[in-house]
């Protein structure tokens, strides 16, 4: 009998199953691994639990929050967030705090950062096609070099100039230097309009025994409700005909093949692997587009340290270029129950690699030795404190947003839409760098589509709530339903030039400039008078009083302050107006000359 098949027991797949179960529909969930949770699993090594990359449970989607509570109930902890950046032997608070950043950078470097920021504000990159341009335009080039370039290139293994700006638009969101500074001053984690800034959340929920606890509980509920989760069943192929997937063929670790008929299929497989698994194979251009997609792989070296306290952070970003280590997790600070012995600590040293890198093949012992050496080098542990270690490798942890992915994705999306009973969801299923909550939401949407609703799974993580604030109606980087290449200079040059010409040659509004100059000048002199009055003394402002030579009735008194405000205001109004008029005449003359020359 045909049934609902869900490929992958990660957050997206299990959520889809859970949502179907709530509606009374069963499903078979196929998981290649021996654990549920996908990248949100929790691995248990001799009682030490660890997370693959650190998963905060924070969402702006009420329904997802509700699901979390529903599945896990009282097992949720409210945890404080502390994460810092390690760079040049200093720890920088993250999110950046002004005092701490300036103190660590030093006076000279701080001034250089400030000047670099001003320079970028005055002459920003006209197009924001890549990460370097996107970040530099918001934070300045120097800050980009210190706080973004090294770490990002460690994580992604490619130069920032080759990473699409979409990555920053989705991951950094709502945040600019102005917002970061504002946050440093107010520390309430909200942007100007009161929206919570995603990157600045200072508290988060976390399951007592790690994120895997959530997915183990979810799988258990599904099994109890009549669905089944088949672990160790890797999908080998999807057999299709006339735009329908008819069956999936799975392969167990022992090499046993099984063909399961499909009614409806929801896949969280990496998009590339899904396309390559289709039988018969899709056309060559589709296969080519699938092969263009790249994934970054991840490896964590877990060290068990014989020390009660190592550092207070949940995790530390390692920006120092002298080590390959990208990030360190302190699992005990995520939840005290992640370690079986409170007198010890487990640290996760995270490395970002390509599967075909030589290090990926290194033995566990060699990787652990390198981890100990690097952790000691940056002063976090002493080698003799490390009792033992283990290694976990996670393939395809991150979909890569290179300069080519959008075109491939569009091709594949269009192709997959021709299948009537196949939906693709989740981080790798959509090739979108979603957080867990977004992946879950795609699962909810896919399940509801099976119940007759028409939800667009590709629209998740593009909602306005998660967007960068745009200015002056300029296209916002994340403001698209589907990942799309940013407008290139060629594509927009006509409009850009028109706008530039219009702003350069449009007349200044003389009364407006007059009023602005008048107000500022009037307020300035009025304030100067009032300051002297407030300071008092035997003879108040004898020199400022000389302005009485020019302004009728002026003296350093409250009456004088009012009089000078109006008179200076009038004078400023005239001067501002005259300046604007002269400038407009100049432009008119210039245009007439240009027209004459053209004629």
């Amino acid at each position, binding site marked *: 009998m045909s049934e609902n098949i869900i490929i992958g027991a990660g957050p997206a797949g299990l959520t889809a199953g859970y949502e179907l179960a709530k509606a009374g529909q069963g499903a078979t969930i196929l998981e290649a691994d021996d654990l549920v949770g996908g990248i949100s699993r929790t691995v248990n090594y001799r009682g030490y639990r660890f997370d693959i990359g650190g998963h905060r449970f924070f969402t702006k989607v009420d329904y997802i929050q509700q699901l979390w509570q529903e599945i896990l109930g009282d097992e949720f902890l409210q945890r404080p967030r502390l994460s810092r950046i390690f760079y040049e032997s200093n720890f920088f608070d993250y999110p950046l705090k002004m005092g701490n950043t300036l103190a660590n950078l030093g006076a000279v470097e701080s001034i250089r950062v400030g000047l670099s920021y*001003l320079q970028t*504000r*005055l002459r920003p990159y006209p197009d924001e096609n890549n990460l370097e341009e996107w970040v530099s335009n918001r934070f300045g080039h120097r800050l980009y070099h210190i706080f973004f370039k090294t770490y990002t290139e460690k994580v992604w293994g490619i130069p920032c100039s080759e990473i699409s700006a979409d990555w920053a638009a989705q991951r950094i969101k709502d945040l600019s230097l102005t917002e970061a500074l504002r946050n440093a001053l107010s520390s309430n984690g909200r942007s100007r309009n009161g929206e919570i800034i995603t990157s600045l959340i200072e508290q988060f929920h976390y399951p007592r025994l790690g994120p895997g606890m959530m997915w183990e509980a979810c799988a258990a509920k599904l099994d109890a409700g009549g669905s089944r989760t088949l672990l160790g069943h890797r999908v080998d192929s999807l057999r299709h005909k006339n735009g329908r997937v008819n069956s999936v063929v799975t392969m167990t670790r022992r090499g046993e093949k099984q063909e399961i008929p499909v009614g409806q299929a929801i896949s969280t497989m990496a998009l590339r692997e899904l396309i390559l698994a289709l039988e018969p194979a899709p056309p060559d251009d589709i296969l080519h587009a699938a092969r263009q997609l790249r994934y970054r792989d991840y490896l964590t070296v877990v060290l068990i340290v014989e020390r009660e306290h190592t550092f207070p952070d949940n995790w530390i970003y390692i920006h120092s270029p002298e080590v390959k280590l990208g990030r360190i997790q302190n699992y005990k600070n995520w939840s005290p129950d992640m370690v079986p012995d409170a007198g010890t600590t487990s640290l996760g040293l995270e490395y970002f690699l390509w599967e075909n890198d030589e290090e990926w093949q290194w033995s566990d012992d060699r990787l652990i030795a390198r981890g100990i050496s690097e952790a000691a080098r940056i002063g976090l542990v002493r080698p003799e404190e490390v009792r033992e270690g283990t290694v976990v490798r996670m393939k395809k942890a991150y979909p890569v947003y290179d300069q080519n992915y959008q075109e491939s994705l569009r091709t594949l999306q269009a192709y997959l839409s021709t299948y009537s009973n196949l939906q693709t969801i989740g981080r790798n299923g959509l090739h979108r760098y979603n957080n867990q909550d977004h992946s879950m939401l795609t699962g909810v949407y896919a399940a509801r589509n099976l119940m007759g609703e028409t939800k667009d799974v590709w629209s998740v993580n593009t909602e306005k709530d998660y967007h960068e604030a745009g200015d002056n109606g300029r296209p916002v980087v994340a403001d698209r339903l589907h990942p799309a290449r940013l407008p290139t200079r060629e594509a927009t040059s006509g409009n850009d030039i028109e706008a530039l*010409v*219009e*702003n*350069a*040659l*449009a*007349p*200044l*509004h003389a*009364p*407006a*400039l007059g*009023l*602005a*100059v008048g*107000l*500022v000048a009037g307020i*300035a002199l009025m304030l*100067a008078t009032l*300051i*002297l009055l407030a*300071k008092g003394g035997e003879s108040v*402002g004898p*020199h400022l009083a000389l302005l009485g030579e020019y302004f009728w009735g002026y003296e350093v008194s409250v009456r004088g302050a009012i009089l000078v405000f109006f008179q200076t205001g009038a004078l400023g109004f005239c001067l*501002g107006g005259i300046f604007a008029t002269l400038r407009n005449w100049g432009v008119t003359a210039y245009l007439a000359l240009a027209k004459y020359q053209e004629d």
Partner: protein
Amino acid sequence: MKTRTDDDRLIAAAARINTFALGFVFAILCGAGLFLMTIFLLLKGGDSVGTHLQLLGQFFPGYSVSWVGSLAGLLYGAVCGALAGGAIGYLYNSIVRRFGT
């Protein structure tokens, strides 16, 4: 009906001022201006150096006609210039947005 040409559009438009740039320019002009005026008086020397410019100390605590004072003047001038320029740009744009075409 007469169509709106590009020329008409240009004539009807009102230019916007880049508030940030205007503030920056004013900051440089005022900061450098006060700095140079102070230095100029110091270099001229004399019995009583800059008695009148000194009066700015009434408004700018720490300012004096001295080498250190010139740096304070640079800072004060820049801050006041930035505020004035920024305010003019902001007010102008607000007025144009409200009343301009």
